[in-house]
């Protein structure tokens, strides 16, 4: 396990280095941030001073060198627009995004797995077919449109049944503002969390259904049945446990993308999370924030994947054994 861990760690560092080069060049090569943030009536002298202050007059390689040497000391640069450290800015948005992503994850798991298993156990029943049709909708309708429809139905038509956006009331939990502990906060979270969860729920339904159909025909299930175990125990213990590996893998990856790229949902619902910050920063060409964001995202994906791989080892003894030999 330790060898396995170390090898994965080495690969991860390589990925981070490669991404640093790609992201930095990609973001710093386009556009002109000065024109986005300086008042139009600033004269040329002001403009040149602003360019020099941000170091944009230096050649790209020099800017990259400064970025890397600062990054190695844990400093991802200051936001052009807010003049505060970019990493700090992003992390201040993290709680809002995390609680939304986790609520969406809960929806995806607790709706997706049971529904998928029902569809898998009774594929030809009306319930099974309805679930599968619903999941196709969840897949194929654009996220943005789903969000607008949720707002339209629950906020506009049902005038104020649920708020159309924003974060609502927050309370401090260990010094971090969270919404899920207040009724107002929860009501604000509901629509965006559903919006974020719809696609993932559909995905989980499909995975769970396929897994269930496969597992139901396996010898160990037949054996369990022959042993006279109750149907309930067969489904909840023998089948459920065995379909979880692909579900955990996919959700691990999807959790990452829900945290990092909830851009559409956060924009539609004006949810003050990291995705909204990213899109605002891209529009304002706030380069340090975009770069820091992408670097933190890369870092997070790598950590999540590492954790998922470790989880495999725990869930499936075969992985544990083969990795120990390698």
């Amino acid at each position: 396990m330790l060898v396995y861990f170390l090898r994965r760690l080495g690969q991860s560092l390589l990925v981070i280095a490669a991404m640093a080069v790609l992201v930095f060049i990609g973001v710093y090569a386009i556009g002109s941030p000065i024109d986005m943030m300086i008042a139009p009536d600033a004269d040329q002298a002001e403009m040149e001073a602003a360019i020099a202050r941000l170091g944009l007059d230096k050649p790209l390689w020099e800017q990259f060198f400064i970025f890397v040497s600062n990054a190695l000391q844990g400093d991802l640069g200051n936001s052009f627009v807010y003049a505060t450290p970019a990493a700090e800015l992003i992390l201040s948005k993290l709680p809002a995004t995390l609680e939304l992503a986790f609520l969406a994850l809960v929806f995806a798991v607790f709706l997706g797995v049971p529904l998928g298993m029902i569809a898998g156990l009774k594929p030809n029943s009306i319930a099974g077919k309805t679930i599968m049709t619903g999941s196709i909708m969840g897949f194929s309708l654009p996220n943005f449109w789903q969000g607008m429809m949720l707002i339209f139905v629950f906020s506009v038509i049902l005038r104020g049944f649920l708020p159309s956006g924003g974060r609502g009331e927050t309370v401090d939990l260990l010094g971090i503002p969270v919404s899920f502990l207040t009724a107002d906060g929860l009501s604000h979270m509901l629509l965006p969390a559903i919006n974020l969860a719809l696609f993932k729920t559909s995905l989980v339904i499909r995975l769970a259904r396929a897994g269930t159909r496969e597992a139901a025909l396996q010898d160990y299930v037949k054996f369990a049945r022959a042993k006279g175990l109750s149907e309930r125990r067969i489904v909840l213990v023998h089948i459920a446990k065995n379909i979880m590996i692909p579900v955990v893998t996919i959700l691990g990856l999807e959790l990452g993308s829900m945290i990092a790229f909830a851009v559409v949902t956060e924009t539609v619902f004006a949810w003050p999370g990291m995705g909204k910050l990213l899109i605002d920063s891209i529009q304002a060409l706030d380069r340090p924030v975009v770069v820091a964001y992408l670097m933190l995202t890369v870092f997070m994906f790598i950590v999540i994947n590492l954790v998922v791989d470790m989880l495999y080892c725990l869930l499936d003894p075969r992985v544990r054994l083969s990795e120990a030999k390698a």
Partner: protein
Amino acid sequence: MCAVSLAAVMASPVAAQELKIGLSSEPSALDPHFHNLGPNNAMRRHMYDSMVLQDESQQLKPGLATSWKPTDDTTWEFTLRQGVTFHDGSPFTARDVVYTVCRIPAVEDSPSSFTVYTKAIAGLEVKDDHTLIVKTDKPYPLLPVEVSTWGVLSATANGVAGDITFSRDGCSGTGDFPKTQAFNDGSKANGTGPFKFKEFTRGEKIVLERNESYWGDKPAWQTVTFRPITSNGPRVAALLAGDVDMIDKPPLQDLERIKSEGFEVAQGLSNRVIYLHFDHEQEPTPGIDGTGGKNPFKDMRVREAVSKAINREAIVARIMGGVAVPAGELLPQGMFGSTPGAEHDGYDPDGAKKLLADAGYGDGFKLVLGSPNDRYINDAQIAQAVAQMLARVGITTEVDAMTKSTFFARRNKYEFSLYMAGWGSGTGEMSSPLRALVATRDKEKGMGGTNRGRYSNPELDAMIEKALATVDDDKREAILREASQVAMKNYAILPLHYEVTPWAYRKGLSYTPRTDQYTIATGVTPAN
């Protein structure tokens, strides 16, 4: 239905004192001197007064100064208002203005500094607590308008007890200035404005409270909450759902819908002109084909032909849904320096073809028109319409529309022979667009900053410079009118239309539209 009307009845007493506004763009900070840009400047006006104020049509009116006058060519005397206090109770005196002017250049990492509006100040002298003498290097008529762009801080509240001596190279006696963060978290958010800081969570909300001891008309609202909702659809939805009482910049295509749902829309002419700028410099010029390497725009007949080929009325009617006004100058009628009755060229495709033939381009040529697609109202569609109109007179035009950050970067590298952009006059007078857009580029003089067509006309430059040194308002306005006519007559630049800014709000409110496009809660009143 029952539940809805009941909710409405129960909500109304609260709503009378509380106002929620959905904003299309969020200020980057609540520090009044951090970032000289629209959203920040609008928010600043709630909490921090300036010596001179700008009303809805950007006319100057007394603020913290009750009157001001030039005492000689380079000296101005401001008489300050008596009995004004800051939010913390400390009295307002001339020393606070000196403190403010000293702080502006000292703001750390300001993305766009307010020094553009203070650097004309050569000296400041506190004659007594309520009289301030301002010295400039040369005659400087824009001083009153420039002091209207920055809010005043309290020296006392920031721990300064003694005298402050102003100097351009660094003041003395100011101590350490408060940091931007101290304004964002409210600890130093202390002005004289009609509203006080209550809460700011970036990306989420800004909450302001009425200043009960305000010197002017007290606002109608006990609490005002601003929520940034940057996407158009969700912002409209928030209004329709009743989550906010008012939104700025509703998309033009949604105005009918908003009205049909029982909401109100206010519209007002803005100070922003949308224009086409020619490349007056390069030869050959990028994107032009079929002219044998020549830059056709150096020929005034071609520029006039382009103007005549464009049907401004059609653009306003079809693309802008009537929510814009065709432009014949760089500043709308009625603003300082505009010529009464100034007309734009009429739509005359035949005349345009004839002019092109006279200029030797009877067979037309190929052109690429650069335009942003997310900066001005319906910008890419306007560019498309212009391209089709030019095609009809033989100039085969391809539109290259792109996101604003890329567009401005390319424009500043002179990559377009014809581009579309907009200019809002921050000072509300003609000197602003003339100086920025058509004066010869000159870093020393601070002229032609946005003249990316590199137009140059010494006669016009001389007039602009003369206007900028004429303190007498009537004389200055006459010179500006003349200069504007010279620029128009020479087709230095082609104004297309003035943007009209819409606001939408629930029934029972009213808002007086502002030419500077700012959304200011003091202008929102319960309609009677």
